């Protein structure tokens, strides 16, 4: 039987078939962070269990960390206790930790690829739903709960029923000013928040092949917002070029041997997917969300939809969303005024994202009504941007230049929206209260967020 990329990775990781469709699978890389791991370590301690493979486990602090000044003690004592807990757990169990003062600290899904720890063909897990990001390398990477984190720490394995396989074929090519974020938002808008539930998405087609590694990460990152267990892109020369020379990838002969093996991973010709969706990249314009799920999204040239044109539960959901967002049906999306801009998150805070936003900002200044911040995805991204002088472009434009972390994507630290504040955000979730209680989030690409910062309202970045 011909097999897909996902079949190849799945089959290579089965330790034991438990039932017809449930298997015990071996985990190559386990990423952990401060928020979803303390209870797992407590469980190990309670049962007198150890960490089976600390050498395959990598920890960083990201969700809870302050992104401002770092030389002072952390003001939030509850957050500090959680950060300390990860430090002592890592020490006790011999796990490598990128702590707050480490130059390698950053969002877990940014530093894995940055280190070259994320590699094609791997099974990667993390107690975070955006673990799907790593699938951009042709890995099977999925988010898990804390009970499963404990299971992986103790056994280096995860128990899974095999998900189905969905091919999302994106044909054609994206027009200038339209990028990976627009592509994935348009796809989620098409298939819905549960369109890929129970599935692993493989993104294929010319528009996907043409994406850079970082753009592929943006696409795979948001697979979870369509309900998918994971997202992936077949590894190719773009992947190998990105990985070559990174700290954790094999060197010399074993690099060559690895690349040969990785070339065997893509789906075989004629391999069958359980489900298929197609989208023509040329039809995608810059996307912005208008509601409270990532699927409530439209082209920037569109208007806020009228719930009266929908039926039943969809209608009630849209009405509720517009009430929360403080938007009237029929309002043009272009022109909706904003108060805040957040350029950051595991979706869009890598160096290419910062470069793209800087291109828009160079020589311009943020509108007087807007408070804007950049939170690089990692301290290495931050350092790279500073070498390129991007920090100066952002500062000159009136942006706050921060340290790395998840920051206002989920607002666990001090970076939050006030009630009623409207934000142009490059992150991944526009749920009610996600960025702060009563806060209103519009998701978009880094270029669109930068343009919105300048104009003080949502605007079409094409032609800038």
């Amino acid at each position, binding site marked *: 039987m011909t097999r897909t990329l996902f079949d190849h990775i799945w089959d290579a990781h089965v*330790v034991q078939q438990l039932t017809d469709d449930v298997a015990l699978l071996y985990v190559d890389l386990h990423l952990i962070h401060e928020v979803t791991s303390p209870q797992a370590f407590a469980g190990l301690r309670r049962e007198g269990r150890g960490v089976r493979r600390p050498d395959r486990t990598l920890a960083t602090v990201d969700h809870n960390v302050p992104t401002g000044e770092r030389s002072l003690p952390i003001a939030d004592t509850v957050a500090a206790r959680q950060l300390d807990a990860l430090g002592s757990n890592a020490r006790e169990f011999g796990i490598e930790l990128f702590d707050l003062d480490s130059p390698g600290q950053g969002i877990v899904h940014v530093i894995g690829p940055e280190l070259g720890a994320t590699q094609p063909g791997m099974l990667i897990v993390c107690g*975070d739903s955006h673990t799907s990001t790593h699938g951009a390398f042709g890995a099977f990477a999925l988010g*898990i709960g804390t*009970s499963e984190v404990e299971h992986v720490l103790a*056994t280096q394995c995860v128990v899974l029923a095999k998900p189905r396989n969905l091919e999302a074929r994106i044909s054609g090519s994206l027009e200038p000013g339209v990028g990976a974020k627009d592509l994935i938002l348009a796809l989620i808008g098409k298939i819905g928040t549960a369109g890929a*539930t129970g599935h692993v998405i493989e993104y294929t087609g010319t528009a996907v092949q043409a994406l850079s590694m970082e753009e592929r990460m943006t696409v795979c990152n948001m697979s979870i917002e369509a*309900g998918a267990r994971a997202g992936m892109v077949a590894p190719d020369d773009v992947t190998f070029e990105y990985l070559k020379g990174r700290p954790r990838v094999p060197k010399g002969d074993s690099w060559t041997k690895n690349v040969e093996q990785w070339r065997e991973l893509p789906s075989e010709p004629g391999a069958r997917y359980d489900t298929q969706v197609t989208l023509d990249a040329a039809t995608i314009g810059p996307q912005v969300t208008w509601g409270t*799920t990532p699927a409530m999204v439209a082209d920037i040239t569109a208007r806020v939809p009228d719930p009266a044109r929908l039926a039943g539960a969809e209608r*009630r959901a849209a009405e509720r969303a517009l009430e929360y967002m403080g938007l009237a049906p029929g309002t043009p999306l272009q022109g909706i005024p904003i108060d805040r801009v957040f350029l950051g998150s595991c979706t869009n805070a890598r160096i290419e994202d910062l470069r793209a936003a800087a291109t828009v900002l160079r020589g311009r200044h943020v509108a007087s009504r807007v408070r804007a911040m950049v939170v690089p995805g990692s301290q290495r991204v931050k350092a790279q941007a500073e070498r390129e002088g991007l920090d100066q472009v952002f500062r000159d434009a009136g942006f706050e230049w921060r340290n790395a972390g998840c920051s206002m994507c*989920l607002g666990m630290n001090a970076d939050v929206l006030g009630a009623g504040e409207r934000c142009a955000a490059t992150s991944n979730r526009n749920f009610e209260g996600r960025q702060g209680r009563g806060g209103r989030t519009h998701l978009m690409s880094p270029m669109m967020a930068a343009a919105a910062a300048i104009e003080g309202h949502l605007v079409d970045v094409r032609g800038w």
Partner: protein
Amino acid sequence: MVSSARRPFVRHRGRVVALPRQDVDTDQIIPKQFLKAVDRTGFGANLFFDWRADPNFELNRPSARGATILVTGPNFGCGSSREHAVWALAEYGFQAIIAPSFADIFASNCYRNGVLPARLSAAEVETLTRNSAGDQYELVVDLEQQVVTDDRGFEAWFTADPYGRELLLRGLDEIGRTLLEEPSIAAYERRHA
């Protein structure tokens, strides 16, 4: 011998509260400011924290007091993988959640915390939502038979993930069970060294 991690879930009779919304995400179930804890307890009081500020919110109604079964819309538990959402629901008292569909990670977290995510059709969920509009509506959720019934003749068979069902029925210590596979895990590691 694998020990039990928790009380098995076989059959549950309890009061119902309906929350007829779709795409209820885990940020709503337990907002981020409560994720800083290092324990598994203390989340129940903050379940649906933002929504509970509204006196008309479904869980604030007198008829919802003591509810142990939540009937809700499709894609329940979407978004963040935070298991804290299930800890909050369980600590509040919910033992079963009935919806047309669940987000994958959320359902997986339920099975590992003794909470049953039971899938019924949208029409059946709507019937239950209507039935629960009065006071004191109770359901019996039988996991062995995979059936939901009430005292008025409602009867519907639900689907549940077979592996998750086993975890619930046996209250299994999953890690203890996997550790029995140690020889297979070690053999896998040798093959891939």
